[in-house]
Protein backbone atom coordinates (compact mmCIF):
# COMPACT_ATOMS: atom_id res chain seq x y z
CA UNK A 1 0.00 0.00 0.00
CA UNK A 2 2.81 2.31 0.90
CA UNK A 3 4.42 1.73 -2.46
CA UNK A 4 1.23 2.59 -4.31
CA UNK A 5 0.89 5.81 -2.35
CA UNK A 6 4.47 6.70 -3.11
CA UNK A 7 3.99 5.89 -6.77
CA UNK A 8 1.02 8.20 -6.89
CA UNK A 9 3.00 10.97 -5.33
CA UNK A 10 5.78 10.50 -7.83
CA UNK A 11 3.60 9.71 -10.79
CA UNK A 12 4.65 12.79 -12.73
CA UNK A 13 8.32 12.03 -12.21
CA UNK A 14 7.75 8.43 -13.20
CA UNK A 15 6.00 9.42 -16.42
CA UNK A 16 8.79 11.82 -17.29
CA UNK A 17 11.40 9.14 -16.61
CA UNK A 18 9.59 6.66 -18.84
CA UNK A 19 9.39 9.27 -21.57
CA UNK A 20 13.06 10.02 -21.21
CA UNK A 21 14.10 6.38 -21.41
CA UNK A 22 11.81 5.85 -24.35
CA UNK A 23 13.15 8.82 -26.28
CA UNK A 24 16.74 7.94 -25.54
CA UNK A 25 16.23 4.38 -26.62
CA UNK A 26 14.64 5.09 -29.97
CA UNK A 27 16.40 8.40 -30.60
CA UNK A 28 13.12 9.79 -31.90
CA UNK A 29 13.28 7.74 -35.09
CA UNK A 30 10.77 5.34 -36.55
CA UNK A 31 13.66 3.12 -37.58
CA UNK A 32 14.79 3.01 -33.98
CA UNK A 33 11.53 1.45 -32.97
CA UNK A 34 11.43 -0.83 -36.01
CA UNK A 35 14.94 -1.95 -35.23
CA UNK A 36 14.04 -3.24 -31.81
CA UNK A 37 11.50 -5.51 -33.47
CA UNK A 38 13.74 -6.36 -36.41
CA UNK A 39 16.69 -7.34 -34.31
CA UNK A 40 15.03 -10.34 -32.59
CA UNK A 41 13.56 -11.32 -35.95
CA UNK A 42 17.00 -11.37 -37.52
CA UNK A 43 18.30 -13.47 -34.64
CA UNK A 44 15.40 -15.80 -35.22
CA UNK A 45 16.14 -15.98 -38.92
CA UNK A 46 19.77 -16.88 -38.37
CA UNK A 47 18.95 -19.42 -35.70
CA UNK A 48 16.31 -21.12 -37.78
CA UNK A 49 18.67 -21.26 -40.78
CA UNK A 50 21.41 -22.81 -38.68
CA UNK A 51 19.49 -25.07 -36.34
CA UNK A 52 16.56 -26.34 -38.37
CA UNK A 53 18.90 -28.86 -40.00
CA UNK A 54 20.13 -30.17 -36.66
CA UNK A 55 17.24 -29.96 -34.29
CA UNK A 56 14.14 -29.19 -36.26
CA UNK A 57 13.98 -31.92 -38.84
CA UNK A 58 11.45 -34.08 -37.07
CA UNK A 59 9.58 -31.31 -35.37
CA UNK A 60 6.51 -29.44 -36.48
CA UNK A 61 6.51 -25.69 -35.97
CA UNK A 62 10.20 -25.62 -35.17
CA UNK A 63 10.51 -21.92 -35.99
CA UNK A 64 7.63 -21.09 -33.65
CA UNK A 65 9.36 -23.26 -31.07
CA UNK A 66 12.49 -21.18 -31.54
CA UNK A 67 10.52 -17.96 -31.49
CA UNK A 68 8.96 -18.81 -28.11
CA UNK A 69 12.42 -19.24 -26.66
CA UNK A 70 13.82 -16.12 -28.24
CA UNK A 71 10.83 -14.02 -27.29
CA UNK A 72 11.06 -14.81 -23.61
CA UNK A 73 14.80 -14.93 -23.39
CA UNK A 74 15.53 -11.68 -25.20
CA UNK A 75 13.02 -9.85 -23.03
CA UNK A 76 14.59 -11.32 -19.93
CA UNK A 77 18.06 -10.48 -21.16
CA UNK A 78 17.22 -6.94 -22.15
CA UNK A 79 15.20 -6.07 -19.07
CA UNK A 80 17.78 -7.40 -16.64
CA UNK A 81 20.94 -6.11 -18.29
CA UNK A 82 19.46 -2.67 -18.87
CA UNK A 83 17.83 -2.66 -15.47
CA UNK A 84 21.19 -3.36 -13.91
CA UNK A 85 22.59 0.05 -14.83
CA UNK A 86 19.41 1.97 -14.05
CA UNK A 87 20.47 2.93 -10.55
CA UNK A 88 24.06 3.88 -11.30
CA UNK A 89 23.03 5.72 -14.44
CA UNK A 90 20.76 7.99 -12.45
CA UNK A 91 23.07 8.61 -9.52
CA UNK A 92 23.26 12.26 -10.54
CA UNK A 93 19.58 12.52 -9.73
CA UNK A 94 19.10 10.56 -6.55
CA UNK A 95 22.18 12.02 -4.90
CA UNK A 96 20.62 15.48 -5.26
CA UNK A 97 16.92 14.85 -4.91
CA UNK A 98 15.08 12.65 -2.46
CA UNK A 99 13.16 10.28 -4.73
CA UNK A 100 12.40 6.56 -4.41
CA UNK A 101 15.25 4.87 -6.20
CA UNK A 102 13.26 2.00 -7.64
CA UNK A 103 11.50 4.47 -9.95
CA UNK A 104 14.53 4.42 -12.23
CA UNK A 105 14.40 0.65 -12.55
CA UNK A 106 10.64 0.62 -13.06
CA UNK A 107 10.90 3.14 -15.84
CA UNK A 108 13.55 1.05 -17.62
CA UNK A 109 11.29 -1.96 -17.22
CA UNK A 110 8.34 -0.17 -18.75
CA UNK A 111 10.48 0.61 -21.73
CA UNK A 112 11.66 -2.97 -22.21
CA UNK A 113 8.09 -4.16 -21.69
CA UNK A 114 6.94 -2.00 -24.59
CA UNK A 115 9.65 -3.59 -26.67
CA UNK A 116 8.49 -7.02 -25.60
CA UNK A 117 4.92 -6.10 -26.47
CA UNK A 118 5.95 -5.15 -29.98
CA UNK A 119 7.83 -8.40 -30.44
CA UNK A 120 4.85 -10.29 -29.05
CA UNK A 121 2.61 -8.83 -31.74
CA UNK A 122 5.10 -9.94 -34.37
CA UNK A 123 5.12 -13.34 -32.71
CA UNK A 124 1.36 -13.74 -33.03
CA UNK A 125 1.45 -12.63 -36.66
CA UNK A 126 4.15 -15.20 -37.24
CA UNK A 127 1.97 -17.85 -35.62
CA UNK A 128 -0.70 -17.19 -38.21
CA UNK A 129 1.80 -17.77 -40.98
CA UNK A 130 2.98 -20.95 -39.29
CA UNK A 131 -0.63 -22.25 -39.23
CA UNK A 132 -0.89 -22.31 -35.47
CA UNK A 133 -4.47 -22.72 -34.30
CA UNK A 134 -5.45 -19.98 -31.92
CA UNK A 135 -7.43 -21.38 -29.00
CA UNK A 136 -9.01 -19.77 -25.96
CA UNK A 137 -6.01 -21.04 -24.04
CA UNK A 138 -3.96 -18.18 -25.46
CA UNK A 139 -5.59 -15.98 -22.83
CA UNK A 140 -3.62 -17.96 -20.26
CA UNK A 141 -0.42 -16.51 -21.69
CA UNK A 142 -1.20 -13.50 -19.55
CA UNK A 143 -0.09 -15.56 -16.57
CA UNK A 144 3.51 -16.17 -17.67
CA UNK A 145 3.72 -12.64 -19.11
CA UNK A 146 2.64 -11.01 -15.86
CA UNK A 147 4.99 -13.23 -13.88
CA UNK A 148 7.84 -12.59 -16.29
CA UNK A 149 7.41 -8.84 -15.86
CA UNK A 150 7.59 -9.25 -12.09
CA UNK A 151 10.47 -11.68 -12.38
CA UNK A 152 12.44 -9.21 -14.49
CA UNK A 153 11.72 -6.44 -12.02
CA UNK A 154 12.94 -8.68 -9.20
CA UNK A 155 16.16 -9.64 -10.98
CA UNK A 156 16.59 -5.99 -11.95
CA UNK A 157 16.28 -4.90 -8.33
CA UNK A 158 18.93 -7.36 -7.26
CA UNK A 159 21.30 -6.60 -10.12
CA UNK A 160 20.98 -2.83 -9.99
CA UNK A 161 21.71 -2.88 -6.27
CA UNK A 162 24.70 -5.14 -6.77
CA UNK A 163 25.97 -3.11 -9.67
CA UNK A 164 26.26 -0.08 -7.39
CA UNK A 165 28.66 -2.03 -5.22
CA UNK A 166 30.45 -4.19 -7.76
CA UNK A 167 31.00 -2.88 -11.25
CA UNK A 168 32.25 -6.18 -12.65
CA UNK A 169 28.80 -7.70 -12.16
CA UNK A 170 28.11 -6.44 -15.65
CA UNK A 171 30.64 -8.81 -17.21
CA UNK A 172 29.77 -11.67 -14.93
CA UNK A 173 26.10 -11.22 -15.78
CA UNK A 174 26.70 -11.28 -19.51
CA UNK A 175 28.66 -14.51 -19.12
CA UNK A 176 25.91 -15.89 -16.94
CA UNK A 177 23.11 -15.01 -19.36
CA UNK A 178 25.09 -16.61 -22.14
CA UNK A 179 25.25 -19.84 -20.17
CA UNK A 180 21.64 -19.51 -19.17
CA UNK A 181 20.72 -19.13 -22.81
CA UNK A 182 22.25 -22.52 -23.60
CA UNK A 183 20.54 -24.06 -20.61
CA UNK A 184 17.11 -22.74 -21.48
CA UNK A 185 16.53 -25.14 -24.35
CA UNK A 186 15.87 -22.35 -26.79
CA UNK A 187 16.87 -24.18 -29.94
CA UNK A 188 16.81 -27.81 -28.83
CA UNK A 189 14.34 -30.06 -27.05
CA UNK A 190 15.01 -31.81 -23.79
CA UNK A 191 12.93 -34.85 -24.66
CA UNK A 192 16.03 -36.91 -25.35
CA UNK A 193 17.39 -36.50 -21.84
CA UNK A 194 16.63 -38.76 -18.88
CA UNK A 195 13.84 -37.76 -16.52
CA UNK A 196 16.35 -36.57 -13.90
CA UNK A 197 18.02 -34.21 -16.33
CA UNK A 198 14.65 -32.98 -17.53
CA UNK A 199 13.74 -32.17 -13.94
CA UNK A 200 16.95 -30.19 -13.54
CA UNK A 201 15.76 -27.93 -16.36
CA UNK A 202 12.75 -27.05 -14.23
CA UNK A 203 15.10 -25.32 -11.80
CA UNK A 204 15.70 -22.65 -14.43
CA UNK A 205 12.92 -20.04 -14.12
CA UNK A 206 13.51 -18.72 -17.62
CA UNK A 207 12.99 -22.18 -19.01
CA UNK A 208 9.65 -22.39 -17.18
CA UNK A 209 8.40 -19.28 -18.95
CA UNK A 210 9.51 -20.57 -22.33
CA UNK A 211 7.97 -23.96 -21.64
CA UNK A 212 4.64 -22.36 -20.71
CA UNK A 213 4.55 -20.45 -23.98
CA UNK A 214 5.28 -23.57 -25.99
CA UNK A 215 2.70 -25.66 -24.17
CA UNK A 216 -0.03 -23.16 -24.93
CA UNK A 217 0.98 -22.12 -28.42
CA UNK A 218 2.32 -25.30 -29.97
CA UNK A 219 0.90 -28.14 -27.90
CA UNK A 220 -2.36 -26.38 -27.02
CA UNK A 221 -2.31 -27.81 -23.52
CA UNK A 222 -2.41 -26.12 -20.14
CA UNK A 223 0.52 -26.79 -17.82
CA UNK A 224 -0.21 -28.51 -14.50
CA UNK A 225 -1.18 -26.52 -11.39
CA UNK A 226 2.16 -27.51 -9.88
CA UNK A 227 3.89 -25.91 -12.82
CA UNK A 228 1.98 -22.70 -12.18
CA UNK A 229 2.91 -22.78 -8.52
CA UNK A 230 6.57 -23.41 -9.26
CA UNK A 231 6.69 -20.32 -11.46
CA UNK A 232 4.91 -18.28 -8.84
CA UNK A 233 7.36 -19.42 -6.17
CA UNK A 234 10.38 -18.48 -8.31
CA UNK A 235 8.98 -15.03 -8.92
CA UNK A 236 8.06 -14.51 -5.28
CA UNK A 237 11.55 -15.45 -4.12
CA UNK A 238 13.35 -13.24 -6.61
CA UNK A 239 11.04 -10.27 -6.13
CA UNK A 240 11.16 -10.62 -2.36
CA UNK A 241 14.94 -10.73 -2.40
CA UNK A 242 15.09 -7.66 -4.63
CA UNK A 243 12.76 -5.63 -2.41
CA UNK A 244 14.66 -6.68 0.67
CA UNK A 245 17.96 -5.54 -0.88
CA UNK A 246 16.54 -2.15 -1.77
CA UNK A 247 15.16 -1.73 1.69
CA UNK A 248 18.40 -2.71 3.30
CA UNK A 249 20.79 -0.75 1.11
CA UNK A 250 18.54 2.21 0.26
CA UNK A 251 20.66 4.67 2.20
CA UNK A 252 24.00 3.04 1.49
CA UNK A 253 23.85 3.42 -2.28
CA UNK A 254 24.89 7.04 -1.87
CA UNK A 255 28.26 6.13 -0.44
CA UNK A 256 29.22 4.29 -3.58
CA UNK A 257 28.32 6.75 -6.31
Amino acid at each position, binding site marked *: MQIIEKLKK*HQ*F*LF*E*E*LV*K*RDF*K*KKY*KRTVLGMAWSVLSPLLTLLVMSLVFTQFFGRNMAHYTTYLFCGNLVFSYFNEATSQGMTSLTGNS*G*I*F*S*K*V*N*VPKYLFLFSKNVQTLINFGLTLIVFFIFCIFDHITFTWRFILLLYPIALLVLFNVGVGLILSA*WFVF*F*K*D*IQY*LWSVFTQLLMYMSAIFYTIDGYSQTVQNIFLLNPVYLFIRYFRKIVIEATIPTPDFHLLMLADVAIVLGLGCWMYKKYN*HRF*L*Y*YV
Partner: protein
Amino acid sequence: MAILELKDVSICYMTGDFKDIGLKEYVMRRIKGNYRVKEFWADRDISFALEKGDMLGIIGTNGAGKSTLLKAISGIMEPTKGWVHREGTIAALLELGSGFDGDLTVKENAYLRGAMLGYTREFMNETYEQIIEFSELREFEDRPFKQLSSGMKSRLAFAIASLVNPDILILDEVLSVGDGAFKKKSEAKMKEIISGGATTILVSHSLSQIREMCSKILWLDKGRQIEFGSDVQGICDRYQDFLEKKK
Protein backbone atom coordinates in the same frame (compact mmCIF):
# COMPACT_ATOMS: atom_id res chain seq x y z
CA MET B 1 7.81 24.79 17.95
CA ALA B 2 10.92 24.37 15.87
CA ILE B 3 10.30 23.84 12.18
CA LEU B 4 13.59 22.04 11.79
CA GLU B 5 15.53 20.37 14.53
CA LEU B 6 18.74 18.38 14.42
CA LYS B 7 19.95 16.46 17.45
CA ASP B 8 23.47 15.04 17.60
CA VAL B 9 23.50 14.35 13.89
CA SER B 10 26.57 12.41 12.83
CA ILE B 11 27.21 11.10 9.38
CA CYS B 12 29.80 8.50 8.61
CA TYR B 13 31.06 7.82 5.14
CA MET B 14 32.89 4.67 4.34
CA THR B 15 36.13 5.23 2.53
CA GLY B 16 38.95 3.03 1.42
CA ASP B 17 39.44 1.05 -1.73
CA PHE B 18 36.12 -0.76 -1.64
CA LYS B 19 34.54 1.42 -4.27
CA ASP B 20 36.17 0.24 -7.44
CA ILE B 21 37.06 -3.30 -6.57
CA GLY B 22 34.80 -5.73 -8.31
CA LEU B 23 33.03 -8.72 -6.89
CA LYS B 24 35.91 -11.07 -7.70
CA GLU B 25 38.44 -8.88 -5.92
CA TYR B 26 36.05 -8.41 -3.00
CA VAL B 27 35.66 -12.14 -2.52
CA MET B 28 39.43 -12.63 -2.75
CA ARG B 29 40.08 -9.98 -0.13
CA ARG B 30 37.40 -11.33 2.14
CA ILE B 31 39.01 -14.75 1.96
CA LYS B 32 42.48 -13.38 2.60
CA GLY B 33 41.09 -11.18 5.32
CA ASN B 34 42.51 -7.90 4.11
CA TYR B 35 39.26 -6.21 3.17
CA ARG B 36 39.25 -2.96 5.08
CA VAL B 37 36.82 -0.11 5.16
CA LYS B 38 37.80 3.10 6.84
CA GLU B 39 35.24 5.28 8.46
CA PHE B 40 35.17 8.94 7.73
CA TRP B 41 32.96 11.14 9.84
CA ALA B 42 31.79 13.96 7.63
CA ASP B 43 29.68 15.40 10.42
CA ARG B 44 29.84 14.84 14.15
CA ASP B 45 27.24 15.72 16.75
CA ILE B 46 25.58 18.62 14.99
CA SER B 47 22.63 20.01 16.93
CA PHE B 48 20.56 23.06 16.20
CA ALA B 49 16.97 24.17 15.76
CA LEU B 50 15.36 26.69 13.44
CA GLU B 51 12.10 28.56 13.87
CA LYS B 52 9.76 29.63 11.11
CA GLY B 53 11.22 32.40 9.00
CA ASP B 54 14.79 31.86 10.15
CA MET B 55 17.57 32.29 7.66
CA LEU B 56 20.50 30.09 8.52
CA GLY B 57 23.90 30.57 6.95
CA ILE B 58 26.28 27.62 7.09
CA ILE B 59 29.92 28.58 6.84
CA GLY B 60 33.10 26.55 6.84
CA THR B 61 36.03 25.71 4.62
CA ASN B 62 35.95 23.01 1.95
CA GLY B 63 35.41 19.61 3.48
CA ALA B 64 33.79 20.99 6.60
CA GLY B 65 30.76 18.76 6.03
CA LYS B 66 28.34 21.40 4.78
CA SER B 67 27.01 19.58 1.75
CA THR B 68 26.71 16.32 3.63
CA LEU B 69 24.75 18.04 6.35
CA LEU B 70 22.39 19.51 3.76
CA LYS B 71 21.82 16.03 2.37
CA ALA B 72 20.88 14.79 5.80
CA ILE B 73 18.51 17.70 6.33
CA SER B 74 16.80 17.14 3.00
CA GLY B 75 16.43 13.43 3.64
CA ILE B 76 18.66 12.25 0.80
CA MET B 77 20.92 10.73 3.45
CA GLU B 78 20.09 9.14 6.76
CA PRO B 79 22.19 10.30 9.69
CA THR B 80 24.37 7.51 11.02
CA LYS B 81 23.58 8.72 14.53
CA GLY B 82 21.16 11.26 15.87
CA TRP B 83 17.96 12.43 14.22
CA VAL B 84 16.48 15.16 12.06
CA HIS B 85 12.97 16.42 12.64
CA ARG B 86 11.24 18.43 9.91
CA GLU B 87 7.90 20.15 9.81
CA GLY B 88 6.36 20.70 6.40
CA THR B 89 7.69 20.43 2.89
CA ILE B 90 11.32 20.76 2.08
CA ALA B 91 13.07 21.73 -1.13
CA ALA B 92 16.78 21.28 -1.59
CA LEU B 93 18.45 23.05 -4.46
CA LEU B 94 21.83 21.38 -4.56
CA GLU B 95 24.28 21.84 -7.41
CA LEU B 96 21.74 22.95 -9.95
CA GLY B 97 23.69 22.14 -13.08
CA SER B 98 23.75 18.38 -12.66
CA GLY B 99 21.03 15.84 -13.26
CA PHE B 100 20.01 17.08 -16.67
CA ASP B 101 20.00 14.84 -19.68
CA GLY B 102 22.02 15.97 -22.67
CA ASP B 103 19.93 14.15 -25.25
CA LEU B 104 16.61 15.62 -24.23
CA THR B 105 15.44 19.02 -25.38
CA VAL B 106 15.27 22.05 -23.14
CA LYS B 107 11.54 21.65 -22.76
CA GLU B 108 11.74 17.97 -21.87
CA ASN B 109 14.49 18.66 -19.39
CA ALA B 110 12.42 21.40 -17.82
CA TYR B 111 9.55 18.98 -17.22
CA LEU B 112 11.85 16.26 -15.94
CA ARG B 113 13.48 18.66 -13.50
CA GLY B 114 10.11 19.97 -12.41
CA ALA B 115 9.03 16.41 -11.71
CA MET B 116 12.17 15.81 -9.67
CA LEU B 117 11.46 18.86 -7.57
CA GLY B 118 8.03 17.47 -6.82
CA TYR B 119 5.93 19.79 -8.97
CA THR B 120 2.78 18.51 -10.65
CA ARG B 121 2.23 18.34 -14.38
CA GLU B 122 -0.51 20.97 -14.17
CA PHE B 123 1.85 23.29 -12.36
CA MET B 124 4.50 22.80 -15.03
CA ASN B 125 2.00 23.41 -17.81
CA GLU B 126 1.00 26.65 -16.15
CA THR B 127 4.46 27.91 -15.39
CA TYR B 128 6.44 26.62 -18.34
CA GLU B 129 6.06 29.87 -20.28
CA GLN B 130 7.24 31.76 -17.25
CA ILE B 131 10.29 29.48 -16.94
CA ILE B 132 11.33 29.95 -20.56
CA GLU B 133 10.74 33.66 -20.31
CA PHE B 134 12.77 34.00 -17.15
CA SER B 135 15.67 31.88 -18.36
CA GLU B 136 15.70 33.71 -21.71
CA LEU B 137 15.89 30.45 -23.61
CA ARG B 138 12.90 30.86 -25.92
CA GLU B 139 14.87 30.23 -29.11
CA PHE B 140 16.55 27.14 -27.67
CA GLU B 141 13.35 25.47 -26.50
CA ASP B 142 13.59 22.46 -28.82
CA ARG B 143 17.34 22.10 -28.93
CA PRO B 144 19.07 19.15 -27.29
CA PHE B 145 20.32 20.14 -23.92
CA LYS B 146 23.95 19.34 -24.66
CA GLN B 147 24.11 22.16 -27.18
CA LEU B 148 23.57 24.74 -24.46
CA SER B 149 26.37 26.62 -22.77
CA SER B 150 26.87 25.99 -19.08
CA GLY B 151 25.55 29.46 -18.29
CA MET B 152 22.32 28.70 -20.11
CA LYS B 153 21.98 25.40 -18.29
CA SER B 154 22.23 26.99 -14.90
CA ARG B 155 19.82 29.70 -16.00
CA LEU B 156 17.20 27.10 -16.82
CA ALA B 157 17.93 25.21 -13.63
CA PHE B 158 17.52 28.35 -11.64
CA ALA B 159 14.31 29.38 -13.37
CA ILE B 160 12.69 26.04 -12.56
CA ALA B 161 14.00 25.84 -9.05
CA SER B 162 12.95 29.36 -8.18
CA LEU B 163 9.30 28.39 -8.48
CA VAL B 164 9.46 26.35 -5.31
CA ASN B 165 7.29 27.32 -2.44
CA PRO B 166 8.43 25.10 0.41
CA ASP B 167 8.36 25.49 4.18
CA ILE B 168 12.07 24.80 4.31
CA LEU B 169 14.36 25.88 1.50
CA ILE B 170 17.92 24.65 1.18
CA LEU B 171 20.32 26.53 -1.06
CA ASP B 172 23.79 25.31 -1.86
CA GLU B 173 25.66 28.11 -3.59
CA VAL B 174 22.77 28.80 -5.90
CA LEU B 175 21.81 32.29 -4.83
CA SER B 176 22.70 33.75 -8.14
CA VAL B 177 23.79 32.35 -11.47
CA GLY B 178 24.76 33.52 -14.90
CA ASP B 179 26.29 36.70 -16.20
CA GLY B 180 25.81 40.28 -15.01
CA ALA B 181 22.22 41.00 -15.97
CA PHE B 182 20.90 37.56 -15.12
CA LYS B 183 22.84 37.50 -11.88
CA LYS B 184 20.94 40.55 -10.69
CA LYS B 185 17.64 39.13 -11.80
CA SER B 186 18.24 35.81 -10.07
CA GLU B 187 19.41 37.43 -6.88
CA ALA B 188 16.28 39.52 -6.75
CA LYS B 189 14.16 36.45 -7.38
CA MET B 190 15.89 34.50 -4.65
CA LYS B 191 15.41 37.28 -2.15
CA GLU B 192 11.75 37.35 -3.07
CA ILE B 193 11.42 33.66 -2.25
CA ILE B 194 13.30 34.00 1.00
CA SER B 195 11.20 36.95 2.08
CA GLY B 196 8.15 34.83 1.34
CA GLY B 197 8.55 33.39 4.83
CA ALA B 198 10.26 30.09 4.13
CA THR B 199 12.82 28.92 6.61
CA THR B 200 15.98 29.03 4.56
CA ILE B 201 19.33 27.35 4.87
CA LEU B 202 22.07 28.88 2.81
CA VAL B 203 25.54 27.63 2.10
CA SER B 204 27.77 30.24 0.57
CA HIS B 205 31.42 31.07 0.39
CA SER B 206 30.58 34.73 0.20
CA LEU B 207 30.78 35.99 3.76
CA SER B 208 29.39 39.39 2.89
CA GLN B 209 26.29 37.75 1.48
CA ILE B 210 25.86 35.76 4.66
CA ARG B 211 26.39 38.75 6.91
CA GLU B 212 23.82 40.67 4.97
CA MET B 213 21.07 38.09 4.73
CA CYS B 214 21.26 35.58 7.54
CA SER B 215 19.71 35.67 10.98
CA LYS B 216 21.55 32.64 12.33
CA ILE B 217 24.92 31.13 11.64
CA LEU B 218 26.27 27.62 11.86
CA TRP B 219 30.04 27.32 11.63
CA LEU B 220 31.40 23.90 10.79
CA ASP B 221 35.00 22.81 10.69
CA LYS B 222 36.11 19.28 9.80
CA GLY B 223 32.66 18.00 10.58
CA ARG B 224 32.45 19.57 14.00
CA GLN B 225 30.11 22.27 15.08
CA ILE B 226 32.25 25.22 16.15
CA GLU B 227 29.51 27.71 16.77
CA PHE B 228 25.81 28.15 16.29
CA GLY B 229 23.81 31.23 17.19
CA SER B 230 22.13 34.40 16.14
CA ASP B 231 25.21 36.57 16.73
CA VAL B 232 25.77 36.77 12.98
CA GLN B 233 28.45 39.46 12.92
CA GLY B 234 30.33 38.01 15.89
CA ILE B 235 30.57 34.51 14.46
CA CYS B 236 31.47 35.82 11.02
CA ASP B 237 34.23 37.94 12.54
CA ARG B 238 35.68 34.98 14.37
CA TYR B 239 35.41 32.85 11.23
CA GLN B 240 37.26 35.51 9.26
CA ASP B 241 40.01 35.60 11.89
CA PHE B 242 40.21 31.83 11.68
CA LEU B 243 40.56 31.96 7.91
CA GLU B 244 43.31 34.56 8.10
CA LYS B 245 45.26 32.60 10.69
CA LYS B 246 45.16 29.58 8.42
CA LYS B 247 46.89 31.50 5.68
